[in-house]
């Protein structure tokens, strides 16, 4: 095409008012303004172009140019480290991790798989457990509960380590399954527990900050390589700002969600000494993925060191 404007087609699953989409609107405004219209950003939200995994395929083949979502493992398996239980314990640690040199290396390694990743943020926030049986104080409280787990390896292995009866259900069936009692509970980011009305069909909310996830901004590498060096620099600059904005929105929202959910659900925060019991119980999860070759023990140690720096 001889056209002078370059189009960047981007898609994600979340609705327009979600922090992820909001930060991409910011990205569009800023990049179009600062590049003086040389790059045009076309955002598609609410999964109108496909689910997270379908859109991932489209970015891989170059039909679309960018996405953010659950398909990050295809950019680099090491992003799984960010999802490990208790790899970080709070927002401060989470932000230090995503801004660390370790994360920058993980971003760079994704080039091998055809992705350019200018920045990585934290996906939504921390996960929490909800259920209809009892407040979760210790790992023993989870034993034998029928818990819905997302169809992803880390959550399944994690659930098994904690002794729950894991049940895989697609998202669309979760509400009904919780309402009728096909499953007793589930775990999810607080924003999802609110947005998807899970609180309507649950009694207890237990906050442990046990896990979160990465939110790499995944761009088709071939597309990026065609940009002139000055546009590449500008693209990366705005992407870093957009991801920082996303993290800020997510962190602010999480506090609000906790407050709103506390009014709807009997909420407990797990004590530090009980958290140690959870850490101990979920250690096998680390080992499981190291043995599978997703990352090395050294990678985990470097991730942990980067937090304490």
């Amino acid at each position, binding site marked *: 095409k001889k056209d002078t404007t370059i189009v960047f087609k981007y898609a994600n699953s979340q*609705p*327009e008012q979600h922090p992820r989409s909001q930060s991409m609107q910011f990205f569009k405004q800023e990049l179009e303004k600062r590049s003086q219209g040389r790059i045009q950003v076309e955002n*598609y939200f*609410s*999964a*109108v*172009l*496909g*689910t997270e995994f*379908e859109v991932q*395929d*489209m970015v891989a*083949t*170059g*039909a679309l140019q960018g996405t953010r979502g659950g398909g990050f493992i295809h950019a680099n398996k090491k992003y799984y480290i960010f999802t490990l239980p208790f790899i970080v314990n709070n927002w401060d640690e989470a932000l230090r991790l995503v801004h660390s040199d370790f994360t920058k290396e993980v971003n760079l390694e994704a080039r091998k798989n055809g992705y350019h990743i200018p920045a990585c943020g934290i996906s939504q926030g921390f996960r929490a457990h909800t259920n209809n049986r009892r407040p979760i104080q210790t790992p023993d409280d989870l034993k034998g509960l029928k818990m819905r787990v997302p169809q992803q390896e880390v959550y399944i292995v994690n659930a098994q380590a904690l002794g729950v009866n894991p049940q895989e*259900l*697609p*998202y*669309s*069936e979760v*509400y*009904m*399954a919780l*309402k*009728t*009692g*096909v499953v007793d509970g589930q775990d999810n980011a607080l924003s999802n527990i609110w*947005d*998807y*009305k899970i609180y*309507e*069909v649950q009694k207890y909310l237990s906050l442990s900050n046990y896990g979160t996830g990465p939110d790499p901004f995944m761009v088709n590498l071939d597309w990026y390589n065609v940009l002139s060096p000055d546009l590449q620099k500008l693209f990366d600059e705005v992407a870093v700002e957009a991801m920082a904005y996303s993290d800020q929105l997510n962190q602010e929202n999480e506090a609000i969600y906790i407050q709103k959910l506390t009014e709807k659900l009997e909420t407990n925060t797990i004590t530090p000494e009980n958290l140690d019991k959870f850490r101990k119980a979920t250690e096998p999860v680390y080992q499981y993925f190291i043995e599978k070759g997703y990352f090395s023990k050294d990678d985990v140690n470097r991730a942990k060191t980067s937090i304490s720096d």
Partner: protein
Amino acid sequence: MTILLLSLLLFLILGIPIAYALGLSSFGYFVIQHPELLDILPMRFFSGLNLYALIALPLFILMGLLMNSSGITARLIDFSLLFVGRLRGGLGLVNVMASMIFGGISGSSASDTASIGAVLIPEMEKRGYPKRFAAGITVASSTMGMIIPPSIPMVLYAIIAEESVGKLFLGGLIPGVMIGLFQLGIVLIISIKNNYPTEEVSLTLQNVVRQGKRSSVALVMPLFVVGTVVFGVATATESAAMGAGYALLVGILLTTGVARSNYLKKTLPQTLNSAIQTSAKIMIIIAMSKLYIWVLALERIPEAVTAFVVAMALPPTVMLLFIVLIILIAGTFIDVSPAIMLLTPVFLPACVAVGISPIQFGAILISALAVGAVTPPVGTCINVASAISGLGIGTIFKGAAPFLLANVITLILISIFPALTLWIPSLFMN
């Protein structure tokens, strides 16, 4: 965009199967407008087949076929006839009542058409009803499947609209029952006019008890499917499998000797084969329509429509009726779930802006799309009915049209009177 619509029309007129017509016109669009996006074709096709929620489809079709071949259906119908059989068009009334009850079991209209249609269309034909009438009332009454709670489409809407699923379910109760009652009336009127058969029913205590006993295996069936969902034993998909498993078991228990070995060696494989092929006819349409919908989303057609509607600045009720009209038209071309995904973000903001409740809009959207599911060219229910009855979808639609009047009247009423959709939710949920 115009290419897309016109070429689809041309291909359909040529008699090309609907699935492939959708695929061809989308291909034409990509070649002309976005040759760099041709990679999308196989991806979208695949995503249209890769749908967990639709596994219930062949399972419910199988359940219906097994109920037929094992004799469950015949016993169930005999029993239902005790109640309405003496009225004109008794089996038509049974069809509507069955859908009202089934609507409270399943969350989907397609499964309603599949299971009740597989049972009642042949039965009605046998007793002298025109096949068109039988298929028509089957699809028209199956619209209740996704309006009467529970409802898979309402869960989808609730997620996109960020609204309470519980409230939406309750909001669908009155519209769903209204449609059922109106349709019962229409069946009666048409049946009296055409002198459709009444059924010979002996209402002696002896006969009632005898029929009750005979049909007990059958009566357990809906209880079994409802029960597993209500008591939290299984999800909707699982209950479809359990229903099919139950029908299979009954078939084995009701036969003996040679008949049983025939049932297992011949009838069962044939039934499995026929159920999965019927389901494939529908799945291929869904898969190809995924391409079409992708183009609509890419071209941001929904956004353009919103801007247009908002710019007209109509009073809320008039605007709502206007939106109902658009949803009805859109619903004829787009299938239910994708239509919810496309239309909710389009119209809900406009509605909320003028003070219309998202619960009321949800009930209206789902009720209107239910009509779309039974209108050609793209409608899952009418396709299911066509696959079951062997009739063309145009013929079935002609048969269904009088009953869809009930849906349209209900749609107008729930658009004008918000209380019809908001009263029950307000009773039960703060």
